[in-house]
């Protein structure tokens, strides 16, 4: 392998490794819809259930749109199953988890 190629490889591999590591550690944001939510007082139950999940950094609920946005701490993730369980425990129905 000639020298320019070697230099390219030496640069490329660490950069890719760094990019992969950064992606793994960046905060993840999940959104989903909650059916049945129609008043502010009911939204607290959803917030409380989600806050009990390890790694949850912040929660934003839009009553108008029936959407919940959950930001996770770096290095953690929220599964569809766990989010669905939290919404069910709040007394509502989840759909369109992303």
């Amino acid at each position, binding site marked *: 392998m000639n020298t320019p190629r070697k230099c390219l490889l030496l640069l490329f591999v660490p950069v890719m490794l760094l990019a992969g590591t950064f992606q793994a550690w960046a905060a993840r944001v999940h959104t989903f819809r909650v059916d049945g939510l*129609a008043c*502010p*007082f009911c939204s607290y139950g959803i917030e409380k259930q989600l806050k009990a999940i390890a790694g949850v950094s912040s929660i934003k609920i839009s009553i108008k749109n029936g959407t919940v946005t959950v930001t996770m701490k770096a290095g953690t993730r929220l599964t569809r199953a766990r989010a669905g369980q939290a919404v069910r*425990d*709040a007394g509502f129905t989840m759909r369109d988890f992303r």
Partner: protein
Amino acid sequence: MKRIAGFTIAFLIAAGTSLPATPAPITTNTALPVAKGEYVFRQQAIFNQSGDDPSGARRDHHVAVSASVLGYGVTADLALFGVAPLAYKKLRMTAPGGARVTREDSGLGDIRAFARYTVYKRDMPGRTFRIAPFAGIEFPTGDDTATDALGRLPPPVRLGSRSWDPFGGLIVTWQTLDYQIDVQASYQANIEAGGFEFGDVARLDGSLQVRLWPGELGDDTSAFVYGVAELNLINQGKNRMSGVANPDSGGTALWGLLGLQYVTPRRIIEAGVQLPLMQDLNRTALQRDYIARGGFRLNF
């Protein structure tokens, strides 16, 4: 004594079989959920005035109650509630000799505990429909043995009934982003104790809450103001003393309430006034003038 015993115990009727803690009606229950592990606390002050006396004894009856309610979500479908009332009751009347007498008492009334379970739920975007039966017991924690210079206090002034009274019913709720409707049918069986038995109470309650503010929801809207209108149709059977029905007790009343609620994710502040729209009470049973309510709810 007969006239005194002839009172309808309208506080028990008008105050409701159960004070709800979840967001919703002021005088009746809702089928909306209490999240698993969540607590909802409610404090409500109730002022009850009665002075329309057909008996000629010029009875004037005041009841002030501070009711504390705690609800807990065992699961998303099963919620438990406890209601503890602190009451002040006063009765002024003209005694047979012509003197005006006052009889009063204050303290803890009969505590109620009940469970509510959601048997049907249909969630849609921005709306929900639910059905939930409930059942509970009213415990004889209020003192019914208090006396004054005239002897044992009459039933309208006693804090408790001395009896274990079961009650139950069914709630149907339809909620959208713009309004909510709750309908409840309930029945309380009042059991005989110490020779006295209040008449059983059957109720049909309806509540409409309409969002007055904001007019248009924003993406970040987190507080509503509701206008509340409620109807309470209540029938109480005749009281019985040693098995004999008192003809001056019991009857049917229809109450209407108008109120306001300010609702946020963590708290509700509310107030309302109930007026009797119809009172078809038996003979000299005392008629109610109005009931005023105000309070707040917190969840945690």
